[in-house]
């Protein structure tokens, strides 16, 4: 129990969570065929970066700038999701699917 507590209040713990989220995000982006799934993968990577920024700013630099970056990442993620959902919806209207493999008119 003590080990777990010290791990959760150390930089390494947060970085580990960030790294796991990052790996899951990459895995999600690479394996999902569904456009919403890919979008979720992107969000996971963004949040991994956010956790890193907050952890570094708390344990390493002691400055607030890392936490501000984390706020901006959330903002960007929201903006990106809004545009992404609009694009995906449009694609669905025309193709009746959101499978990324179906986006195949434009190719060599």
């Amino acid at each position, binding site marked *: 129990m003590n080990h777990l507590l010290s791990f959760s209040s150390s930089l390494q713990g947060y970085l580990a969570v960030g790294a796991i989220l990052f790996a899951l995000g990459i895995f999600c982006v690479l394996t999902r065929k569904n456009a919403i799934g890919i979008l979720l993968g992107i969000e996971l990577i963004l949040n991994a*970066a956010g956790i890193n920024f907050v952890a570094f700013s708390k344990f390493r630099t002691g400055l607030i700038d890392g936490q501000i970056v984390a706020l901006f990442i959330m903002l960007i993620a929201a903006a990106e999701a809004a545009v*992404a959902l609009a694009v995906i919806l449009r694609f669905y209207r025309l193709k009746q699917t959101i499978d990324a493999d179906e986006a195949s008119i434009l190719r060599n």
Partner: protein
Amino acid sequence: MGETLHNVMLLAPEVCITLFLCLLFIVDGLFPSLRSNRFPMILTVVACIASMILTAKVGKTPAAYFGGMVVNDGFTTFFRYLFFFTAAVSSYVAFGSKEVEAKSRIEFSLLLLCVTVGMSLMASASNLLVLYMGIEMVSIISFVMAGFRRDNLRSNEASFKYLVFGGVASALMIYGFSLIYGLTGSLNYSQIAASLIAAQGNVGLITWLALVLIYSGLAYKISAFPMHFWAPDVYEGAPTPITAFFSVGPKAAGFAALLRILLTVFAVKTGDGNWKAVEGLSLTSIIAVISAATMIVGNLSALGQTNVKRILAYSSIAHVGYMLMGLVTLDRSGITAIIFYLIAYCAMNIGAFWVVGVVSNIRGREDLEAFRGIGWSMPVLGTCMAIFIFSLTGIPMFSGFIGKFLIFGSVIKSGGFLWLALLGVLNSVVSLYYYVKILKSMWLDKPETEESLRLPFYHAVGLVGLAIPTIVLGLYFTPILEFAEKTLATLL
């Protein structure tokens, strides 16, 4: 308060564009009948010209402002001119095209001006957060612009692919930024550089991982190997005027960000005005390999294509390869050559895509067949296309030749990367094949039916306006070179 006001004054060109954006919104709300005529275009061009004038006014003394987050130096000034010019020309192109419908012209102007502010921020950022905001501002709005023809499946697919690739690339990049922040404890370029120098070549695996991740984001913006996959599909599917803009504006912005990071974070200025890589982080041989791969992939993939828009998309990837070549020497002549190349590339590439757009409006498609004999029925269009194509190939007397000559020359002079220069020349020869295919179709093949086509005066003026600098810069280039040198001398 006074300090902030002074800082905002230095940001005047961007503020000006933003104000015009608001004005467009208000005018559109008050007078909806204005949206379908040329009014939004005129306002966009006026906004760009006003911002250029302001750029000239604020660009006098190099300075860092907003707590060192943004810098205003000769480098920023150059890229601001380039972006505002590109935006003005793109809106002129778009308003003559059937692909941008009359009823949504005002949206086009709004989105274009938004992207222009983002590009401008990318060029002046000297802080990772500002750079990220600039890149996202350009990316997210570009997704919308690529899907501008809402009921067109190709346009939607372009937007969809752009979104997936762009989202992943920028997410990877910000994770890389977080690692750099952890390693160096700062977001500011100068402080990151200071702690990299202090590490004295003691560079761990994590630094390299961070570099790879950041590169993936920037490579996506300039469509360099291995993040170039999206470019042909997006360029083909997006409306042609928007493709013309994508292939120049955001790409140049990506180069601005890449150059600034490489020259201020990963290299130190030496006394004679050149740069030296930070100890343990010598990126030049990696850039050489990337440059070679980008050229080869772009040129070889273009060979088998029949869609002219796609050929030009691959050719624009190849041109990124040529431009990256100027970075391997890390000296003044190489970077000056890149800046010159960007100017030449801007005029000739927009011009070439413009011609494709005009032909596609007439014929409804843009494959080589659609270009048959079009040189004879519209001689001005055909001649302008010939000039742009010759310049893109790098035939003497045109600006593209001078650009290539300067870049290859700087690589050969430095001596270390002779193979790269040789590869560049070989690639130019290969590229001649697919460029000439377009010209052959335009001038040597007879059209199927005798038809009388007339190039609208609106397009003729613009095309000739881009063809003239393409020729003039090929013959009389010293002033531009001096300007490029001056641009670099004040890089902060």
